[in-house]
């Protein structure tokens, strides 16, 4: 509960800040708090990812972006009615979606009945891997993970093409000279 309160406080702080540097640092703090929340929920794999990606690398990349742009957000002059409406409607739909969810932490929720018992009882025998998350990720759901890696590959290539595109040859030539 204390963690969730801190999350809310940080979120409000992020929204109210105009200095983008402060926002980046606050976003990093937010990620660390989120990692702690995942840790409390016993999702250690997700917590590790959140701490490494969300708090670590994202912060560095955002700071590198700040290096390229101005560090203070320009005040919006356009109307705020449409974004407010979109946010309200989306939030309402999400809250409406949670209404019929089973109570948090119940053992007989549908998600725990489908394939989870099989994973928990069989995965160590079938894959010799004690961490069920790894077994599911790389073996039972290998196709999904292959898709994820393809997404990372595509995203990486896309960003590199956008940011480096066209001038790459010159830079390589410069690098050769420097060496």
């Amino acid at each position, binding site marked *: 509960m204390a963690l969730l309160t801190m999350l809310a406080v940080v979120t409000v702080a992020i929204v109210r800040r105009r200095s983008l540097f402060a926002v980046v640092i606050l976003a990093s703090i937010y990620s660390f708090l989120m990692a702690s929340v995942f840790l409390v929920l016993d999702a*250690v*794999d997700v*917590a*590790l*990812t959140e701490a*490494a*990606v969300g708090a*670590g*690398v994202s912060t*560095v*990349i955002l700071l*590198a*972006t700040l*290096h*390229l742009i101005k560090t203070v957000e320009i005040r919006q002059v356009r109307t705020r009615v449409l974004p407010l409406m979109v946010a309200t409607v989306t939030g309402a739909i999400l809250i409406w979606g949670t209404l019929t969810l089973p109570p948090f932490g119940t053992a007989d929720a549908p998600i725990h009945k489908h394939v989870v018992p099989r994973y928990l009882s069989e995965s160590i*025998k*079938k*894959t*010799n*891997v*004690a*961490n069920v*998350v*790894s*077994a599911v*990720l*790389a*073996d039972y759901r*290998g*196709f999904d*993970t*292959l898709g994820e*890696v*393809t997404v*990372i*590959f595509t*995203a*990486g*290539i896309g*960003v*590199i093409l956008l*940011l*480096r595109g066209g001038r790459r040859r010159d*830079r*390589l030539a410069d*690098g050769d000279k*420097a060496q």
Partner: protein
Amino acid sequence: MSLDLIIRIGTKLILPFILLFAFYVQFHGDYGPGGGFQAGVIAAGTVILVAITFGLATAHRIAPHGLVDRLIPLGLLIFAGAGVAGLLLGYNYLEYTGFSRTPAYGHEYGILIVEFGVLVTVSGTIIALFYAFVERNR
């Protein structure tokens, strides 16, 4: 190049442990939390730390552009190749049973190989992203 002595010495001291932790997360992912994604990010973090502390030139000596750009598709190829290897051994795509005489060990090896592919692609992508951002407008 950062001229602060404490930062430079501290980085030097802490780097091997970060890299070791990355490999621990990678290869201990079978037993504890972790896996290719997390380890890839941590391993890329070492290169980013070097770039921040010692400058881009030093980072380029450790992880040159050519290498980083090749790592991104290489990891994907390792992953997809593991699937094709399963096919060639007479099982389904991405089914690792044939990798060892004991099916369970085959699955264990398969998971290790696939996670290594994830590590390669993720670390390559993160380093390339970092380079792409930092080298812009230089």
